[in-house]
């Protein structure tokens, strides 16, 4: 038994000795990531007057650089495709830790999906993987059950198999990150058939996730507490604007928070050539919508 326990102890000591190498390995990952916006936010390098939050509909449809040039205010797009409200809260809290408070936050809503569990919107744990050597990030990953509790004490348990890919990470044609944080697309989705839907008018609260509703309320309360102007933004889809969903968000947001809804009489929003797919504009369309947003921000103050 003594020999057995001694060998177990040796194994543990060897693992402890190897552990710092994992710290180096994971921090090396961080230098090779394509999208380093979150790292910049953690490091306090994202200071902006207008901050854009949301999922792909914010990342693709709002061009922060265009807003900055028009409004002469620093704008940054910190939206992540496929992210949900939980992730937006995390991004906002991370941003506020080391960056100056923005004057305005534009929070983009995903039509009908924002408050519901769905496959396309998630907490983007994959964005956190390359930053797992940071305590703050790892703590969140433990909270999300992405990393085990023991990873708080051993870097070995923060490693993830995607970090060991021999081939370099393929960059998709939709990975179009601009320095301003926006990710516009210049082409229409290949082999995609568009069908304009003018009849989407209803919204049911059935299936709403209480946690996502709470996240929405949390964003409102963080902005209120920090005296930040929050604007809910509804970009166009290749369908009509859904007034029932807007009403639901208004009920949750209260009367004080302004809503910016795209111009429903704009004919180009009904032209599929301005779209990548039903939910995302191409760069041409995004420029039109961003102009509209700029006008709104100029006049609404």
């Amino acid at each position, binding site marked *: 038994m003594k020999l057995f326990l001694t060998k177990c102890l040796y194994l543990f000591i060897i*693992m402890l000795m190897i552990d710092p190498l994992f710290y180096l390995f994971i921090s090396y990952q961080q230098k090779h990531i394509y999208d380093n916006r979150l790292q910049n936010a953690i490091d306090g390098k994202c200071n902006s007057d207008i901050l854009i939050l949301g999922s792909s509909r914010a990342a693709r449809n709002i061009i922060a650089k265009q807003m900055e040039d028009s409004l002469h205010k620093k704008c940054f797009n910190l939206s992540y495709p496929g992210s949900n409200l939980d992730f937006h809260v995390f991004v906002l809290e991370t941003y506020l830790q080391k960056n100056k408070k923005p004057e305005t936050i534009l929070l983009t809503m995903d039509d009908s999906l924002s408050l519901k569990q769905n496959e396309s919107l998630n907490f983007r744990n994959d964005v956190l993987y390359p930053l797992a050597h940071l305590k703050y990030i790892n703590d969140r990953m433990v909270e999300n059950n992405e990393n085990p509790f023991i990873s708080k004490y051993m870097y*070995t348990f923060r490693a993830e198999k995607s970090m060991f890919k021999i081939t370099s990470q393929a960059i998709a044609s939709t990975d179009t990150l601009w320095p301003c944080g926006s990710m516009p697309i210049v082409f229409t989705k290949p082999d995609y058939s568009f069908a304009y839907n003018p009849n989407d008018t209803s919204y049911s609260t059935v299936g709403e996730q209480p946690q996502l509703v709470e996240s929405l309320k949390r964003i409102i309360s963080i902005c209120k507490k920090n005296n930040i102007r929050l604007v809910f933004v509804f970009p166009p889809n290749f369908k009509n604007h859904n007034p029932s969903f807007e009403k639901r968000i208004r009920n949750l947001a209260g009367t004080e928070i302004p809503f910016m809804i795209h111009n429903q009489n704009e004919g180009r929003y009904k032209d599929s050539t301005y779209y990548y797919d039903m939910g995302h504009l191409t760069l041409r369309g995004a420029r039109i919508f961003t102009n509209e947003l700029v006008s709104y921000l100029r006049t609404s103050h």
Partner: protein
Amino acid sequence: MLFNSFEFLLFLPVVFLLYWFVFNRSLRLQNALILTASYFFYGWWSWKFMGLLMLSTLLDYIYGFFVFSKNRNKAKFFLWLSIINNLGVLAVFKYYNFFAEQFQHGFEAIGLNINPVFLDVALPVGISFYTFHGMSYVFDIYRGQQKPVRNFVDYAVFVSFFPLLVAGPIERANHLLPQVQQPRYFRYEQALDGCRLMLWGMFKKVVIADGLAETVNHIFNNYQQLDGFTLFIGAIAFSFQIYGDFSGYSDIALGTAKLFGFELLSNFKFPYFSRDLAEFWRRWHISLSSWFRDYLYIPLGGSKSGLFKSIRNTFIIFLVSGFWHGASWNFIIWGLIHACGFLPLLMLQKNRKHVTDIVAQDRKFPNVKEWVQMISTFCFVTFAWIFFRSETLQQAFGFISQMVGSTLKNPSQFLHLHGGKSAFIYIIPLVLTDWYLRRDARKLKMTQLTFVRWIIYLLLIYLCIVHLSAEQQFIYFQF
């Protein structure tokens, strides 16, 4: 609690240390600790169903005394009571909804609409395993091969020993109970063997099976859009996934038991090196197939009561085996396919051709004939796995027709699948290691060079840790 969870990583050393250092003064204390730990292990998944496990254990313990009676009528009565009790539990929790649905469909077919009550209850983990433990105990007593155990704790340890509680191997009373009742001593080599087995099992589960699961799930869920070649690869990948998953679990179970001084029945003996289907079933899930052989096939007459009865018994055993895996037509068809594959061997009396030997017995590599035999057996088994993996019969037939019917439109489609392909690389060391061990599984030590051995251990440990990003349940937990 899952073997591939961090809870188990804490649980095991704590129980190990208590077992050998605190409770080592008496066998009774050690068994009481094992039973407590086993119930804790099970209760971690669901405290609710622990009552069912305890009740099932208690009833078979009591039946054991009655079945031991010299009055054969009384013994027979209580034997049947035990069978009804165990199968009844299985029927309610595992099969009730299936039968209710079949009745509903049957009545609909003749124009009658009935609305049977469906049970909204989860399948208790390990139910198919611990009920079979209990039944084998009562059967063995009835057949005079086992005496009833006086000490309830000893019997409860036999039924609920945590390494085998939720997914086997299905132990026999006359194999495990004597080990429970005799003092156990710590043996360094046994414990080390146990650790090696656990590590190798963990590698098979976490790195190979879970790695392949990503690709397999994608291929089976989107088979309509994929070409025949990709589906073929998907079917092969599932063959290795289920082998890695289940044999990995069995290895961890056997290894864990060794740490506590127990030797469990071996459940896998390199089944994909089988040269025919009969050999495959002597090497795959051995504890289940031997259970059915001893308690169903032989009592029905086995292969010694004429050709017709042999064929009938073969079909019964394979259909029951399929149904044991789950209440679904898929599993029944899976069993039927194996029965049909077994039939020619039975009729030509070649089903016992490879009982004692192993492929390439005295050689390093198989000869051409053996290659052909192994590959054809593997292909047959892989074909049957399609039914096992599919969620519905429609999906299985759709998968096969797409696999066979679609031309190789785009053979590179497989290469463009998202993620999970790296796991295919690990199949190579798995096959090579299995080939190396095929004559003697105890050679898992691999090399006498300590330094090399430690490097291999560390490599396996780190591969497991890195791949253990999210716990994946074992496939056989659902049975």
